[in-house]
């Protein structure tokens, strides 16, 4: 519809509508600006200061960042976080894809997918409560292993880096379902024709996956991988629930180190520097999937 078909009064009204657009967007912009962006800027500023909540922040430049990288505990925390990123890519994303492929076009597939979906809506703390119980000394897992004659089990939540590995597996228990659901949506959106054609040509399962399914799932895989990386970088709840980063600082992740420095040690400047570091890493990882999201949606 062009402007010519609108009467002058309707045109005037449409100009008013453009103004009222500001009114419609204002609540969202204001809330996000005040509660998300202002704190973000303040944290960035605090990362360059010495501050413990009393008096005024004192400018010290990049000293917090220097101190951060000198701290072996921080380096350990970075390594644990990398282990989380790699582990959650390998296990929940991998098994999620596997479950989606296995249930795809399978009679009763919806029901067979159900057990994986049950843990999805649990909180990280809920998952932690269940698995802390299972993994405790002489707990359910040790009892099961003893039944098979394995008595000499490690201390699952104490020995590092095993404790991080078992927490990744607990997270995988929760995360497989949603990845399977996402990959299933992806598989269902693949057009039938190329699949039929490949079947006619006698392509077997593996070839079909490599030459057709995998390329067609690529955009979705980028999203799932991006989300998984971003979520695992922020890992906090389950570790705080299961080991509190211990023993000592052995299973700390970056999010946990930030929390401890800030709210336990009252090192506001140092805690903020860790938050900034975590944010920069997360942003770099986000670009991977944001590009995908925005470009596919901003087409118009």
């Amino acid at each position: 519809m062009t402007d010519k078909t609108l009467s002058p009064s309707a045109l005037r009204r449409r100009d008013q509508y453009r103004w009222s657009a500001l009114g419609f967007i204002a609540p969202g912009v204001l809330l996000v600006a005040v509660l998300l962006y202002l704190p973000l800027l303040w944290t960035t500023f605090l990362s360059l200061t010495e501050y413990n909540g009393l008096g005024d922040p004192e400018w010290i430049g990049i000293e917090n960042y220097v101190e951060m990288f000198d701290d072996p505990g921080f380096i350990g925390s970075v390594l644990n976080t990398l282990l989380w990123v790699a582990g959650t890519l390998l296990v929940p994303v991998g098994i999620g894809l596997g479950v989606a492929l296995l249930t795809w076009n399978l009679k009763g597939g919806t029901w067979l997918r159900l057990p994986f979906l049950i843990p999805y809506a649990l909180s990280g703390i809920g998952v932690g409560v269940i698995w802390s119980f299972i993994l405790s000394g002489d707990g359910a897992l040790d009892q099961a292993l003893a039944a098979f004659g394995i008595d000499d089990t490690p201390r699952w939540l104490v020995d590092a880096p095993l404790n991080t590995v078992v927490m990744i597996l607990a997270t995988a228990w929760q995360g497989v379902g949603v990845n399977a659901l996402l990959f299933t949506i992806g598989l269902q959106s693949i057009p039938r024709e190329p699949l039929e054609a490949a079947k006619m040509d006698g392509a077997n399962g593996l070839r079909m996956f490599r030459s057709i399914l995998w390329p067609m799932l690529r955009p979705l895989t980028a999203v799932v991988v991006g989300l998984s990386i971003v979520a695992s970088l922020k890992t906090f709840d389950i570790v705080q629930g299961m080991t509190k980063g211990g023993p000592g600082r052995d299973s700390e992740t970056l999010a946990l180190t930030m929390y401890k420095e800030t709210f336990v040690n009252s090192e506001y400047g140092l805690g903020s520097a860790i938050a900034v570091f975590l944010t920069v890493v997360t942003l770099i990882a986000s670009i991977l999937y944001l590009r995908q999201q925005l470009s596919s949606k901003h087409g118009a």
Partner: protein
Amino acid sequence: MQFKSTARVIRTSVLAVLGLIWLLPVYLLLVNAAKSPETFTTKESWLPTDFSLFGNIAEALELSGLAESAASTLLYSVVSPAIAVLVGAAAGFAIVALRLRHGFAWFVAIFGGTVFPLQMILLPLFDAYSRTGLFDTQAGMIVVYTAISIPFSAFVMRNFFSGIAHNVFEAAVIDGATTWRIFARVYLPMASSALVAIFILQATFIWNDFLLGLVLSQSDTVRPIVTSLAGMQSTYGGAQMSTVLAGGLLVSLPTVVLFLFTQKFFARGLALGQY
């Protein structure tokens, strides 16, 4: 044909075995949450002994103020997503239907609020909340949960409204409807399924929040339920494990049930937002 049905049997069996493994922790949770504190032992976890589940749940509600937390958390996870959905829809409406100038820039500004980790805002929020009296108040929790739900909500609603032909809007303009009327009477009703999808996703997210509750609240009446559960686990995890497990079950049940019954909406929300 023979090959095909063999493949089907193999696929089904692999899934069934894997699925059973996945259900084992759920089984352990149910069995042990049902043991009375007297018969519960950490040495015998696999076999049920008695059924004191309801007693344990009642006990859990008393410990660590879980009952008060449950009421507050219900309030947060209904009110905040409801506001966020409307605010997000209004933003999407302004950008898509009202063709706000530099709409895409505004959209990126709102959506950008979701890409950085919560750690980046925790300390200033804690500081500001303490100074303004919002710390440890229900209003404070509702405000922060609303704000963090807005970016995703605006993202999905913008995508959704982009799919509505613009002459729907032009027609309403010619009819002389006000923008508010067009929003409330034309656009919102068309978007009801997307609104519900966002609401469910965000309600689940808020119900499961731990970190914001940990930093911004302390009293039993304000503290969200998951944060209370974490407190209960560290205080009573040794002596009253079956009660803690019952608490874990109680806290988890609402979101798990909601999710299983609204999978379709979840999948839709996930697909709409590629979340």
